[in-house]
C-alpha cells in the first residue's frame, strides 16, 4: 500500500462517525423519529455547569439515572472512528517512512476546489486554483501521530466521563467532527485546506465550549471563542490572500519552493513580512496569544475532555503548527530585516521589519503574563488554562527565535503532559461531583491515587524536572533563545519557568495535600474514576515521562536530538546569503543555561511547597504575601482586567453602540431621506391639489361658469316672442352692413 493512496482516508473515518452519531442522536431526540425522547434539562451534572448545579447527591459515578438512547452506538461509532484514524495514521506513516525514509513529502490531490480563473497577481498572471489535497511530511506526520493517539485516548476517557450526560451522542458527534477538522488541518497540502480545518476546529470548539448550552456562561464562552478566533482568521485570510497574490497558488510546495529559490523578490518591500504578520494574527487567535488570548480561559466552560483535547493538546497548537509550517516565510522575513536594517537595528526596527521577532516577543510576553495570572487562580481548570496559554507562548518563542524544531518539540511534549493534567483535573472534578474550586479540595491523594500519581508525573514534566518530557523541550527553547541573541526574552522565559513550577505545585498541593476543605457529604462520595478514565491517564503520564527522550540535547549526546533530525526535511534550504550564520555556543554556556533553568524550576517547586504545605497553618504564608501586595494581587487575580476592557471598548462600545448608532442613522437619516421624499411628494401633491382645485380646475370651472352664465343669458333670449326675434335679426343685418361699409 502506498502512503499517498490512503492518506485521504484518515479524516474520513471521523467524518463518517460524526454523520452517524449526529443523525442517530437527532432521530432519537426528535419528534420526527416518532419517539418521545427525554428532552428535559440538557447538560448539568458536571463541574462545568456547577455554578447553577447544586453539588448535592451526584448523579454520576454511582449508576446512572439518565436513559441515553443508542448509547452503545454512540460509544462504538465515536471511539472506533477515532481509533481507526489512529490505526490508519500509523500505517500510513510507516509506509511513508519505508517509501521515502522521511526525507520527502507525499501529496495526494483529490479534486479542484476553487478555480478562480486567470488573474493578474503581483508577479505574473497565472491560473488561480485551490485544490483539495493532502500532504504527509515530517511536520504533518508528527501532528497526525499524536492528534489521533491522544484523540482516541480522550474518546475512551469520555465514555466514562460523559457516561451519564443526556447529550452523550451529541458530544461524540462533535468530538468526531473535531477529529475530522483537526486532521484536515494537519494534513492539508495548502494554506486554504489548512484554513478549512482551522475554521472547522473553531466551529467544534464553539460547539463544545457551549456544550452545556442551557447555561448562559457556556453559550457566551463559546461565542466569544468563535468570534475571537474569527478576528484571528481575518488576519489569516489576509496572509492567505497575500500568498495568492504573490505566488498564484497557496500550495505549500509551490509557495515554499518559489520563496526558497528566489527570496529577494518576495522579501522586497516587506511583502513577506506582511504575510507573516497577517498569518501570525491568525495564530494569536487560534493559539490564544496576546492580544487574542482571553477566550481560552473561558473555554473551560466546556466538558473537561474537550479542554484536554481541544484547548490543550491539539487545536490550540495549530497556530504554532502553522507558523512552523510557513517557516520559510519567517526565516526570509528575518533575513530581510537584518539586510534592510543593517547593524543599527533597534527593537522598534525589528518589530516593524522582522516578523519572527514579533512572534518571539509576543510568545515570550504571553508566556510570562499568563503565568502570573495562573498564580492567583483558584479554579483548577482556570489554572491549567492559563498554564496552556503560557506554554503556547513558549512554543511561539521557540518559533520566533527561528528554532522551529524546538517550538514543535514543545507542542509535542506539551500535548502529553497537558492532556494528562486536564484529564486528571477532570477525574478530580468527577470525584468531587463537579467541584472545580481548589479552595474546596485538599487531601485527595489517598482517595484517588491513580489520578494523583498521574497528575504528579505530568506536573513534574511541565515544571521542567530533568528527565521528563517538558524539561527537554523547554530547555531547548530557553537555550536557543539565549544563543540566538535574545537575553531579555531568555530572562523572561526563565522567570516564567520558575512561575510555572510554582503554580503547578501550588495546584498539586492545594488539590491533593493537606486537609479536605469541601462539604462533608461530598467527601463520602469521593471515588476513583473508572478504568476508561484511568487507563488513558496512565498512558499519557507514561508519555509525559518518555517522549522527551526523542530530543536529547545535542551537546549532551551528539546527534541525540533525533526529533529535530526527523523534522529537518520540513525546513527548506534557502540560498547561502539568506541563511543565518549559525550561532555557535560553547558547551559550557549550554550546560550553564541548562543548569540555570533546572535551578529556577527547583526554586519554584521549593517555594510552592513551602507556601502551601508547611506547618499547622498552611494558608498563613500566601495570605501574608497577598496582604503585602494587595494591588498586585488584585490585578493578577482579575486577569489584569483585560476581559472587562475588551468588553467595554469593543463589544459594548464599538460593535453594539456603533450598531445601534448606525441603526438610528439608518432609520432616521437614510430611510428618513426616503420617507422625506415621500412626505415631500405627498406634500407637493397636496399643494398641487390645492393649486389644481383653485387655479387649474378654477380655470376649467371658470370657463364652464362663463359658458353657463352665457348660456343662461342666451336662454333668456329664447323667449318665444316673434318681435324679439325680428328685432335681433334686424340688428344683425344692420351690424353686418356696418362691418361691410367699414372694412370694404
Amino acid at each position, binding site marked *: 500500500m502506498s502512503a499517498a493512496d490512503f492518506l485521504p482516508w484518515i479524516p474520513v473515518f471521523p467524518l463518517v462517525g460524526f454523520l452517524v452519531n449526529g443523525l442517530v442522536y437527532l432521530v432519537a*431526540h426528535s419528534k420526527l423519529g416518532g419517539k418521545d425522547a427525554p428532552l428535559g434539562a440538557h447538560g448539568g451534572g458536571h463541574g462545568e455547569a456547577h455554578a447553577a448545579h447544586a453539588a448535592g447527591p451526584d448523579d454520576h459515578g454511582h449508576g446512572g439515572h439518565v436513559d441515553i438512547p443508542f448509547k452503545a452506538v454512540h460509544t462504538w461509532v465515536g471511539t472506533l472512528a477515532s481509533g481507526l484514524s489512529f490505526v490508519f495514521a500509523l500505517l500510513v506513516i510507516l509506509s511513508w517512512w519505508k517509501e521515502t525514509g522521511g526525507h520527502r513529502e507525499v501529496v495526494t490531490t483529490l479534486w479542484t476546489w476553487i478555480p478562480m480563473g486567470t488573474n493578474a497577481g503581483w508577479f505574473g498572471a497565472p491560473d488561480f486554483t485551490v485544490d483539495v489535497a493532502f500532504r504527509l511530511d515530517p511536520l504533518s506526520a508528527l501532528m497526525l501521530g499524536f492528534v489521533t493517539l491522544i484523540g482516541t485516548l480522550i474518546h475512551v476517557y469520555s465514555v466514562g466521563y460523559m457516561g451519564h450526560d443526556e447529550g452523550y451522542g451529541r458530544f461524540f458527534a462533535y468530538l468526531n467532527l473535531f477529529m475530522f477538522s483537526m486532521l484536515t488541518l494537519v494534513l492539508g497540502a495548502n494554506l486554504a485546506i489548512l484554513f478549512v480545518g482551522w475554521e472547522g476546529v473553531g466551529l467544534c470548539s464553539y460547539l463544545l465550549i457551549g456544550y452545556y448550552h442551557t447555561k448562559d456562561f457556556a453559550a457566551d464562552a463559546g*461565542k466569544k471563542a468563535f468570534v475571537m478566533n474569527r478576528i484571528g482568521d481575518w488576519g489569516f485570510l489576509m496572509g492567505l490572500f497575500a500568498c495568492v497574490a504573490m505566488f498564484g497558488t497557496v500550495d505549500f510546495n509551490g509557495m515554499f519552493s518559489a520563496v526558497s529559490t528566489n527570496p529577494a523578490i518576495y522579501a522586497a518591500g516587506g511583502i513577506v513580512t506582511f504575510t507573516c504578520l497577517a498569518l501570525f494574527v491568525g495564530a494569536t487567535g487560534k493559539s490564544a496569544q496576546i492580544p487574542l488570548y482571553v477566550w481560552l480561559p473561558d473555554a473551560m466552560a466546556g466538558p473537561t475532555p474537550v479542554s484536554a483535547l481541544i484547548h490543550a493538546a491539539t487545536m490550540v497548537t495549530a497556530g504554532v503548527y502553522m507558523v512552523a509550517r510557513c517557516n520559510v516565510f519567517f526565516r526570509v522575513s528575518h533575513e530581510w530585516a537584518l539586510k534592510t536594517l543593517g547593524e543599527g537595528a533597534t527593537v522598534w526596527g525589528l518589530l516593524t521589519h522582522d516578523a519572527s521577532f514579533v512572534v518571539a516577543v509576543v510568545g515570550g510576553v504571553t508566556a510570562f503574563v499568563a503565568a502570573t495570572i495562573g498564580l492567583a487562580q483558584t479554579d483548577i481548570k482556570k489554572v491549567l488554562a492559563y498554564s496552556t496559554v503560557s506554554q503556547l507562548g513558549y512554543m511561539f518563542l521557540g518559533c520566533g527565535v527561528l528554532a522551529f524544531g524546538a517550538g514543535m518539540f514543545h507542542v509535542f511534549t506539551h500535548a502529553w503532559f497537558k492532556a494528562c493534567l486536564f484529564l486528571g483535573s477532570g477525574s478530580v472534578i468527577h470525584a468531587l461531583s463537579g467541584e472545580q474550586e481548589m479552595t474546596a479540595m485538599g487531601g485527595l491523594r489517598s482517595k484517588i491515587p491513580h489520578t494523583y500519581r498521574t497528575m504528579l508525573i505530568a506536573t513534574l514534566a511541565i515544571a521542567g524536572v530533568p528527565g521528563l518530557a517538558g524539561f527537554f523541550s523547554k530547555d531547548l527553547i530557553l537555550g536557543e533563545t539565549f544563543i540566538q541573541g535574545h537575553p531579555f526574552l531568555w530572562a523572561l522565559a526563565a522567570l516564567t519557568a520558575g512561575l510555572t513550577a510554582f503554580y503547578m505545585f501550588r495546584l498539586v498541593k492545594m488539590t491533593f495535600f493537606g486537609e479536605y476543605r469541601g462539604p462533608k457529604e461530598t467527601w463520602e462520595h469521593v471515588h476513583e474514576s473508572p478504568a476508561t478514565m484511568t487507563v488513558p491517564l496512565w498512558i499519557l503520564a507514561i508519555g509525559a515521562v518518555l517522549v522527551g527522550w526523542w530530543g536529547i540535547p545535542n551537546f549532551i549526546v551528539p546527534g541525540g536530538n533525533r526529533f529535530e533530525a526527523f523534522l529537518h526535511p520540513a525546513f527548506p534550504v534557502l540560498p547561502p546569503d539568506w541563511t543565518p550564520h549559525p550561532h555557535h555556543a560553547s558547551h559550557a554556556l549550554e550546560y550553564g543555561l541548562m543548569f540555570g533553568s533546572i535551578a529556577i524550576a527547583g526554586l519554584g517547586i521549593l517555594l510552592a511547597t513551602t507556601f502551601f504545605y508547611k506547618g499547622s497553618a498552611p494558608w498563613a504564608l500566601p495570605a501574608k504575601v497577598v496582604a503585602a501586595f494587595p494591588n498586585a494581587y488584585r490585578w493578577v487575580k482579575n486577569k489584569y482586567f483585560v476581559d472587562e476592557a475588551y468588553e467595554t471598548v469593543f463589544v459594548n462600545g464599538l460593535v453594539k453602540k456603533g450598531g445601534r448608532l448606525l441603526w438610528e442613522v439608518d432609520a432616521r437619516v437614510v430611510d428618513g431621506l426616503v420617507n422625506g421624499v415621500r412626505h415631500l411628494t405627498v406634500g407637493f401633491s397636496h399643494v398641487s391639489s390645492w393649486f389644481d382645485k383653485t387655479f387649474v380646475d378654477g380655470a376649467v370651472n371658470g370657463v364652464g361658469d362663463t359658458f353657463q352664465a352665457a348660456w343662461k343669458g342666451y336662454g333668456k333670449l329664447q323667449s318665444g316672442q316673434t318681435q324679439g326675434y325680428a328685432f335681433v335679426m334686424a340688428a344683425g343685418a344692420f351690424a353686418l352692413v356696418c362691418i361691410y361699409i367699414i372694412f370694404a
Partner: protein
Amino acid sequence: MNGLLSLLILLPTAGALAILFLPREKTGPIKALATAVAGLTFFASLPLWFARGFRESAGFLFREDLSWIPSLGVRYSLGVDGIAALLILLTTLLSVISIYASYTAVKTREKEYYIFLLLLETGMIGVFCALDFFLFYVFWEVMLVPMYFLIGVWGGPRKLYAAIKFFLYTLFGSVIMLVGIIALYFFNTTGFLWWKGLGNAPTFDILHFHAIAPQIPPDLQLWLFWAFFLGFAIKVPMFPFHTWLPDAHVEAPTAGSVILAGVLLKMGTYGFLRFSLPIFPSAASTRWVQLTVVVLAIVGILYGSLVAMVQKDIKKLVAYSSVAHLGFVMLGFFALNNAGMQGGVLQSINHGLSTGGLFLLVGIIYERRHTRQIADFGGLSQVMPVYATLFMIIALASLGLPLLNGFVGEFTILVGAFLADWKWALFAGVGVILGAAYLLWLYQRVFFGELKHEENKGLQDVNLREVLTLAPLIVCCVWIGVYPKPFFAMTAPASAKIVAALDAAKGAPPAVAAALSPAPAAPVPSATPVVPAAALPETAPRGN
C-alpha cells in the same frame, strides 16, 4: 432545444391560468396544481444545467428570435449564458420551494396567492432570458406587480407601507434606467443632444449593444452608467438605497421574502453583469467610478453587519445581513478581475440559497409563535432539536464556514478585491468577523439558554414538509461548499468575457483575454479601445 426558454416563461403563467378556473374553496387542488406546475418548471429548467455549451464558451444558447414590433426594431429575443442559466435554475428551485413552504402559512385568498406566485415566476425567468431591451423592461416591470400584491395583501401589519415603498422605490430606479435604454436606442440610430448617432437601424438587441460598446463615447458611457446604476443599485440594494429592503422583508409573507432575497435582489446584480459592465466598460473601469461603487459596497458590508447586530426582529436581522452579503457581491464585480467576478456570481447564488433558507426558517418559527422578536425565544434547541440543527447549518453557510457555500463565494471575492487593492479586502474582511458575530449571537439568544417563555415549551419540531423545503437548500450549500467546480465552470466563460471587455476598455495588458482565446496572443489594444476577438459576441450585429 429551441423553445425551452419560452416554455419556462409560459409554464407558470399557464399554471396560473389553470388555477383561475378552479373554485376558490378547493384549496387542496390549488396548492397541488401550483406545486406541480412549479415543480414541472424546475424539471424543465434542468437542461440548462446539463448544457455543455455554457462550460465551453461565453455564447448565448437556447436562442429564440421573433419579430415583435418591427417599426421600433423590438424583437422577442431570448437566450441565456452560463450566468443567466444558473440564475434561472435558482429561480425555478426557489419558486417550487416557496410554493411548497406556503401550504400552512397562507390561509386567506389562497387562490390569488398561488396565481401571483406563479406569475412572479414568469416575470423572473423572463428577465433572465430576455435579450431585447424592450422585452427585458417589460418583464422587469411585470415582476413588480405580483410582488406588490404578495406583500400588500398577504403581508404583516405595515404591509401597505412596505408594498408601496417597494414598488415606488424600484419603479423610480427602473424609470431612470428606461431613460438610459431610450438614450442608447437613439444613440444607436439618430443620435441625440450633442451625441452623434451611429446611424444603425433601430434595434433593442442587447447583444448589439454589447458589440457597439467600444463605440460609445466615454462621456455618454458615464451618464448612462449612472442611469443604469441607479436602477440596479436600488434593486441590489446597495447602501444607501437599501431601506426599502428591511421593510419589504419584514412585512412580506415567508415565500415573498424567500423570492425577494433569493431572486429579486439578483436582478440588480444580474443587471450589472448584463448591462452596466459590458455596455459601459470604460465608465465602469474609470478609477473614480470603480472607487465609488467599491466604497459603497464596503460601507454596505460593514454597515449592514453592524445594523444587523442590534436588530430585535429576526427577519430584519436577516434582511440587513442581505445588505452586507450583496455588498460582497458588488465588491467582487467591481474588483474587475476574474476572481472577483466569478466570486460575485457564485455569491449571488449562495445568498439565494442561504438567505432564502434563513427566511424559510424564520417563517417556520413565525407560524408557530406568531412573533419574530428575538426576545420571545431562547432555549429552543431543547424543544426543537432538528430545527435547531437545520438553523445552525444554514447560519454557518451564511457566515461563511469553509465546506459550506458562503465561504467559497466570499473567499473568491476577497481574493479578487485583494488583487485589485489589498486594502479593500482588509476592510471588507472585517465583515466576515461581524457576520459570525451577529449570526452566532442571534443563534445563542434564540436557541441556547433556559426555556424562559412558557409558550415555547410546547413547540413542535419541524415536520416532514418543512424538512423537505429546506433539504434541497442544504444539499446545495454543502455541494457548492465542497465541490463548487461545476458552478464555477458554468459561469467562468461568461464572466471572463465581461472581464476581457473591461480590460480592453482599460487598455490593460490583456493577460486575461489572452488566456481566454486559444490563439497564442490577442492583439494588445492600443490607445483606442478595441474589443479583442474573444470578447466579441458570436452573433454579428443585426440590422433589425
